[in-house]
């Protein structure tokens, strides 16, 4: 019964979403007060329907109802209950339902906090969100129904992919989706503004906390994904420039540019058209990401789903959504011009450079990701673009960003003097060179290490200046300033982490038997024993590896090689000792004869700076989003 209920309310959500779109957009056009009042009610009803559908599927998983095809394919009676829950979004159909649920959540939030906006504008925003809901609900009902019955019922389920049976991956997709889908609010605001033909600083002010919230979630989601890949999938790698990773990174880059561009539009009423375009681009890249991942067009370690019908549908949806928004933009772009002028040396220019670099980086990654698809489509052979290319382009474009980020918060709007900006900066330059040189010497690095660590230290030294100026004033600095400073500190930590972890990680694959030892980067790894252990739905061989630094034992690692009973797939669980300055990593390969097993041993310095930096960025975004001036609700025109 429950699955039928879920299926029914999912169908019910479709006309509700269509009505939400109709009443919102047409109601605002006709100026009908009753239609405008009805829009948020419809939005809430639609959200309830999707929530009930989601809970129905969750119920089917918790009760391991094998009459539901999707449950039988992705769960097993031996699966522990937290993973039964996360199995809801463990594959294609359920992850789309999660997508729709998250979209409903954002829609309801907009309906709840719309008081700062004119009614007609809020209704248009909800209407555009309704259109996106229609697209996704149709997609699900036509091609990917999670409630399809399996009759007769399966005796036992096929179980969740063992790779996904992990706490990191259980929460990674929801976070990622909250971010991806959250950009739909900025998109809806931009489209609503285009329909209205008016862009003012009021709605940019209103859009900023929403964009920040989505960006924070996406930042955390990507970080979790990278962390998961490190300990579960990648044999110690943390970023592969895999197309699916790129699919989440492109909206992040565009979203970061959007945040900075929104600041200019809010404060100075400049960059209007560009901000609108970025809002459209950011969500379009989120949709493109969904298309790339869900259509199976990519040759990727992540591509779980492969079905051309789904790919065609979502491609059509992408074309309609992006094409529609861009057409609207083309029609209205002429009315968007204006805003106040600024001098060559000004905060506007610095933010323009920021946007330019982020946009070009995003475009380059888009090119590298799609090029193999184009080449294949025109019969030029099956090609892949090597990760080193992405790394080179990304580093080349972000190095100037690191150089300039410190100046942004120090500069004046409209007009500034280079002399004023540079005055006294030798202090930070000295700190940066000293810190960079010390790190380079410590890791015995070359010119690459020196450049990266000097830049990272420079960012950390310069971005804290505005906050430091509050110290003698004995006043609490505004949250937005604290947030921005934290986020930029995160950029510095990230730069340090990437530089040192990429250039100075040591990795060896060796064969060891119990009692043998191996030395790497000053650490001695001693294999104590290998013994079998029994898990709830797997069997494993577990090693005990003691790690010494000189005479002192630091830790004992317990990497495992698991065989999951249902799918019979082997899985590697690495043994990791995390530290601020270094990670020690040991993973088991396989028996290689003479009583030996193959092992992968790694020492990765400053790895945690990468994720720590990303989390600092997210924390900063969270603080900035909760700044008082966004919470007051009233709209003040600048």
């Amino acid at each position, binding site marked *: 019964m429950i699955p039928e209920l879920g299926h029914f309310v999912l169908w019910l959500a479709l006309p509700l979403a269509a009505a939400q779109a109709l009443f919102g957009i047409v109601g605002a056009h006709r100026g009908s007060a009753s239609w405008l009042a009805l829009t948020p009610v419809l939005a809430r009803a639609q959200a309830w329907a999707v929530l009930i559908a989601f809970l129905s599927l969750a119920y089917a998983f918790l009760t391991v109802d094998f009459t539901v095809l999707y449950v039988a394919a992705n769960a097993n009676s031996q699966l522990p209950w937290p993973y039964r829950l996360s199995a809801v979004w463990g594959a294609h159909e359920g992850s789309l339902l999660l997508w729709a649920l998250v979209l409903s959540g954002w829609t309801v939030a907009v309906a709840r906090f719309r008081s700062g906006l004119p009614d007609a504008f809020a209704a248009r925003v909800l209407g555009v969100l309704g259109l996106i809901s229609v697209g996704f609900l149709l997609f699900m009902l036509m091609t990917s129904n999670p409630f399809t019955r399996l009759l007769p019922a399966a005796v036992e389920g096929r179980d969740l*992919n063992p*790779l996904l049976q992990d706490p990191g991956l259980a929460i990674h997709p929801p976070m990622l989706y909250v971010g991806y889908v959250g950009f739909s609010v900025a998109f809806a605001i931009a489209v609503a503004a285009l329909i209205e033909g008016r862009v003012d600083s009021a709605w940019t002010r209103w859009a900023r906390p929403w964009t920040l919230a989505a960006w924070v979630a996406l930042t955390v989601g990507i970080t979790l994904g990278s962390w998961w890949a490190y300990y579960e999938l990648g*044999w110690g790698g943390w970023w592969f420039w895999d197309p699916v990773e790129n699919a989440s990174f492109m909206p992040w880059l565009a979203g970061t540019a959007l945040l900075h561009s929104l600041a200019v539009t809010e404060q100075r009423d400049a960059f209007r058209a560009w901000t609108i375009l970025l809002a459209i681009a950011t969500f379009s890249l989120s949709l493109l990401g969904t298309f790339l991942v869900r259509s*199976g067009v990519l*040759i990727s*370690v*992540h*591509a*779980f789903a*492969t079905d051309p019908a789904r790919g065609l549908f979502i491609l059509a949806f992408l074309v309609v959504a992006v094409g529609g928004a861009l057409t609207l933009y083309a029609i209205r772009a002429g009315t968007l011009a204006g805003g106040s*002028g600024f*001098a*060559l040396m000004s905060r506007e*220019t610095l933010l*323009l*450079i920021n946007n*330019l*670099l982020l946009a*070009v980086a995003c475009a*380059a990654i888009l*090119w590298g990701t799609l090029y193999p698809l184009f080449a294949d489509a025109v019969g030029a*052979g*099956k*090609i*892949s*673009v*090597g990760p*080193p*290319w992405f790394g*080179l*382009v990304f580093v*080349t*474009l972000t190095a100037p960003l690191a150089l300039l980020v410190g100046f942004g918060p120090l500069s004046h709007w409209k007009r500034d003097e280079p002399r004023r900006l540079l005055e006294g900066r030798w202090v930070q330059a000295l700190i940066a060179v000293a810190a960079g040189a010390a790190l380079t010497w410590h890791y015995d690095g070359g010119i690459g290490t020196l450049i990266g660590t000097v830049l990272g230290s420079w960012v950390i030294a310069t971005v804290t200046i505005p906050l430091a100026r509050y110290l003698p004033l004995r006043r609490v600095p505004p949250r937005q300033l604290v947030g921005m400073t934290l986020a930029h500190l995160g950029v510095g930590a990230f730069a340090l982490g990437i530089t040192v972890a990429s250039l100075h990680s040591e990795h060896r*694959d*060796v*064969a060891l*038997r119990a009692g043998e030892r191996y030395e790497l980067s000053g650490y001695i790894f001693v294999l104590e024993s290998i013994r079998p252990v029994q898990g709830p739905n797997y069997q494993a061989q577990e090693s005990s590896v003691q790690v010494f630094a000189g005479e002192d034992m630091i830790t004992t690692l317990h990497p495992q090689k698991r065989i999951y009973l249902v*799918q*019979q*797939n*082997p*899985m*590697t669980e690495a043994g990791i000792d995390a530290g601020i300055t270094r990670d020690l990593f040991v*993973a088991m*390969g*396989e028996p*290689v*004869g*003479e*009583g*030996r097993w*193959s*092992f*992968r041993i790694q020492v990765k310095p400053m790895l945690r700076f990468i994720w720590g930096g990303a989390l600092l960025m997210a924390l900063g975004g969270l603080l900035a989003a909760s700044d008082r001036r966004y919470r007051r609700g009233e709209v003040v025109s600048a």
Partner: protein
Amino acid sequence: MTPARKQRLILVLMVLAGVAAAVTVGTFAFRENLAYFMTPSDIAANAPPQGTQIRLGGLVEPGTVRRESGSVEVSFMVTDGATELEVRFDQVLPDLFGEGKGVVAVGSLDAAGIFRADEVLAKHDENYMPPEVAAALAQAHENATGTPVPDAEAGESEEGGT
């Protein structure tokens, strides 16, 4: 030219210079970072120059996985049904590597014509076959028998079960 115009011109030129620099760096390095996907038959027909990075795809020929006993060094034959090629690798193999299973090896040919892999990728789960491997197997099957394979799943059935 008014000072405002002049400033705007400088800004536009800066933007153009920045984009041009990025595009130059990007395209300059692009070619040498491209890796072509090839099957053993492709390599037999038209061997790439020694040292050129390629992605070799096919099935691991059953019974050909050989180890230096007690060491991580391993060698195996990759086949597309028509031709086979020896691959050597000195790192830990991925979890889903196995005889009769699909594999992609990234690396280059050495002077002896042996493929030296820097990286070996195996199927992500038992349902998933890299599309390029499936296509290569279907092509080899068609060349050998003269009849096309009904669908790409045919590659899967040649595995002989897991």
